[in-house]
């Protein structure tokens, strides 16, 4: 795309629908901080000696100076300006990364505010407008952050700082506070997946080291999700935040606090309703299963929640729901299974008879799952009557031969499971059909 020549910006834009592609072709899709205004003046930094070239007694002082220098921000949308200084800052950041990794005793108390200041100056910025409202993350290339050459090193440096053996949360908590975390969370909306990946690590470390911020972080993630579900439907970092939550949930103590259960029922379950579910479904399902493994008594509300939000028109989402349900059934306790089997199998019966073969197929695959099969077998007297008419009808009527074959297998399995009931149901079904014929 970068090689796309700046063709005379002709009129095909009038097509309306080609607008996006034209925009894409013309400008390399990158963006930078919205705050940035090019001042037009070249930026001058006085080169400092390398840290390794000064006696160790002078290193702390020089380290601070270098941190201060790195607070200067460059305009990366202007690819020609300040080339020398951009390179200087890059090499300085590189040096800082090495220094903080290797040196002992470099994290004095005075360095904490300076490190946090440097990181804040660089990473906290207002994200620019999204290139288009109809941005489709599955199809469109993400917009990449223009200042990445510096930003990446800043993130790298910050993570080394947080992971350093000398790092003391008790000092750092003065600077890494709620406001800092809030700004950090807002950055998860960045369109650049590389940045979100670094943010994920950063937030994870902060959650791990700052016990006092944990509840706050969870609450703010809560708010981001609620806003995402009920207000904007737009936030790029949902998958990353869910990934972090997955491991947070894993660490919850038992019994679960009401707050956590509320999060599951009022936030995680409604997340299933979002249009762009496919972008974070794997992470979401993981979180849900984590919860259920912690506390099996949550199975019923979770499954009922999924039934409530079951997709009505989107087959692709239906397949995802079925996948998630199977993950849940994999860990379900038989006592819980009994509680929800009726509504559950009514839904599965509907899916099995879906004209969309992928939906039907996904549902029928349940019968290949040994654990689910054993649950069905134990409760065949309840499940068989729910499933029977759908299965029987599809075996005669479904357009897709693969589905028909699968259904035969399922029917066969049921017949072996409970032949008496199977025969009864077959007889009833046939006489019902005849009655319809008669009228």
């Amino acid at each position: 795309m970068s090689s796309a020549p700046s063709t005379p910006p002709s009129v095909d834009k009038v097509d309306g629908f080609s607008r996006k592609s034209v925009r894409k072709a013309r400008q390399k899709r990158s963006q930078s901080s919205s705050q940035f205004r090019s001042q037009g003046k070249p930026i001058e930094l006085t080169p400092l000696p390398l840290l390794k070239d000064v006696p160790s007694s002078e290193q702390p002082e020089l380290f601070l100076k270098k941190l201060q220098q790195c607070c200067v921000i460059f305009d990366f949308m202007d690819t020609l300006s300040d080339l020398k200084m951009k390179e200087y800052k890059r090499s300085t950041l590189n040096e800082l990364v090495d220094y903080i990794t290797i040196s002992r005793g470099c994290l004095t108390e005075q360095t904490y505010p300076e490190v946090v200041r440097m990181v804040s100056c660089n990473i906290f910025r207002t994200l620019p407008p999204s290139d288009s409202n109809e941005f489709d993350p599955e199809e469109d290339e993400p917009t990449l952050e223009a200042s990445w050459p510096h930003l990446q090193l800043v993130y790298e440096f910050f993570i080394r700082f947080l992971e350093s053996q000398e790092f003391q949360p008790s000092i750092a908590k003065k600077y890494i506070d709620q406001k800092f975390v809030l700004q950090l969370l807002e950055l998860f909306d960045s369109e650049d997946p590389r940045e979100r990946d670094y943010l994920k690590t950063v937030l994870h470390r902060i959650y791990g080291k700052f016990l006092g911020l944990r509840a706050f972080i969870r609450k703010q993630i809560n708010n981001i999700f609620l806003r995402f579900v009920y207000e904007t439907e737009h936030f790029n970092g949902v998958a990353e935040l869910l990934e972090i939550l997955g491991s947070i949930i894993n660490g919850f103590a038992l019994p679960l606090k009401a707050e956590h259960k509320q999060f599951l029922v009022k936030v995680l379950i409604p997340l299933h309703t979002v249009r762009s579910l496919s972008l974070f479904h794997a992470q979401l399902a993981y979180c849900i299963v984590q919860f259920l493994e912690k506390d099996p008594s949550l199975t019923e509300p979770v499954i009922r929640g999924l039934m409530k939000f079951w997709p009505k028109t989107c087959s692709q989402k239906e397949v995802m729901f079925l996948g998630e349900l199977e993950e849940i059934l994999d860990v379900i306790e038989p006592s819980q299974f009994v509680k929800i089997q009726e509504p559950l199998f009514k839904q599965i019966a509907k899916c099995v008879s879906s004209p969309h073969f992928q939906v039907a197929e996904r549902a029928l695959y349940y019968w290949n799952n040994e654990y689910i099969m054993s649950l069905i077998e134990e409760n065949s007297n309840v499940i068989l009557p729910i499933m029977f008419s759908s299965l029987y009808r599809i075996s005669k009527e479904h357009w897709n031969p693969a589905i028909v074959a699968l259904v035969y297998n399922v029917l066969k399995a049921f017949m072996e499971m409970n032949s008496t009931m199977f025969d009864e149901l077959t007889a009833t079904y046939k006489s019902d059909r005849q009655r319809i014929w008669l009228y």
Partner: protein
Amino acid sequence: MAGAAGPGTGPGAARGDGDDSLYPIAVLIDELRNEDVQLRLNSIKKLSTIALALGVERTRTELLPFLTDTIYDEDEVLLALAEQLGNFTGLVGGPDFAHCLLPPLESLATVEETVVRDKAVESLRQISQEHTPVALEAHFVPLVKRLASGDWFTSRTSACGLFSVCYPRASNAVKAEIRQHFRSLCSDDTPMVRRAAASKLGEFAKVLELDSVKSEIVPLFTNLASDEQDSVRLLAVEACVSIAQLLSQDDLEALVMPTLRQAAEDKSWRVRYMVADKFSELQKAVGPKITLNDLIPAFQNLLKDCEAEVRAAAAHKVKELCENLPTEGRETIIMNQILPFIKELVSDTNQHVKSALASVIMGLSTILGKENTIEHLLPLFLAQLKDECPEVRLNIISNLDCVNEVIGIRQLSQSLLPAIVELAEDAKWRVRLAIIEYMPLLAGQLGVEFFDEKLNSLCMAWLVDHVYAIREAATSNLMKLVQKFGTEWAQNTIVPKVLVMANDPNYLHRMTTLFCINALSEACGQEITTKQMLPIVLKMAGDQVANVRFNVAKSLQKIGPILDTDALQEEVKPVLQKLGQDEDMDVKYFAQEAISVLALA
């Protein structure tokens, strides 16, 4: 969830079975519990019928509690329920019993789904007006307080919309409490609630006493406008419009302007966008003096904002801003303080910005007058007319009339016409299509003489365009031109040229003749149609291409009603009969159809 209420608990079960007249109602009520969402939904939509049949007392004592209990349902059903209940006052026995509707609506106002909640709040607002002052304090205000101090954010969000409806009719003590609740919601720790409060701040300010506005609303406004979340700050900008209208100039300057100035330079582009978007409202609200001192400089900054979204929003407001300036000194202000920035925008890097500007810039000519327009604006129009982006060019062309009024057609045509002609021959058919659509408008503005001289040949050229959509548009364009310029003009300029095409070697062009005749015959009237068009159509019935022949049949059907009986019987009928025997199936079909429609059988 479905059928949460067990059998026998609903109102229908009480007496419905024995009473035949209530049978349909019992059915509806059963449907309220049906497993099928659609049936439940249908039943909810007929809720007023059920209530009417049950009578006010049973509606209050049986139906409403039943509904309150079944509130855990599909959002779709809940939405319908929330809407219905807003109009239920009469069905529960009038204003004295309006409070009976509060419990179900209160539950609905706490659900997660925003649409349901909003609808419940809307219904509550409606019902609040039907409460007597006593009932309002006894029932409605306590509900608002309960919602305002609810655990989950949804109820607090809903509460925000209810303060302004109960405040004006409450007693002083209660008023103080209401204000207190509103204050605490403005600093709620959930951003969703702060957003809801911020969005209702203006509305609430309007019903407050002026003193309270100054002492309470202004500090809330200042806080919300400096909230840590930009989504809250931007809503404060909206509130600013309402608050500014309530205050005197001095108070405004002291209490509101510092915040507004800050919003115009907010670090988040969303907030700046909001300022740009609400600029005209803000301008009217703060009055001319503050506009000159504060808003114009802020506007200049917005016009050169670093985000295109903000610049585009500001560019949209250029005309309104200028219009609303006080007439005295307006010209100087625009020329010195606005125009230089507009000139920059004409060559902006972003097409949306340029297109936004192009949609309003022409409006400046009426404000600035002839000389300024010619000297300063015309070069800008021309630059935009040659812009690489067609949307920009179209926006200019579609507003030509306002410039026309100011500088006259000669001036306009000399400067603008070459650009229009260039667009008319553009390589992209969609551009040509767009220009064609403006032809009737241009024709009206330019006058017949000028049109014939400069544009007529273009219009004719489109008839033989290689894209069907263009030929089609060109055809209907001709019809509109004839409606504008009259039949005589058509007869002299258009019709001969169209008819010549009947002999074109390309059958598509021959068909275009037919399509033109279809479009023009009505506008041209009987005489021209019979004398000039009909012979050509009839002649074409012998065309060797079947498509032309069946289009002849279709054309005859179309122009038949305009012709007199003689022509129909003596000329049209034989030709159609011959076509009715054609070897081609389609020709036969359309010929027979024409015969039956024209009743020539």
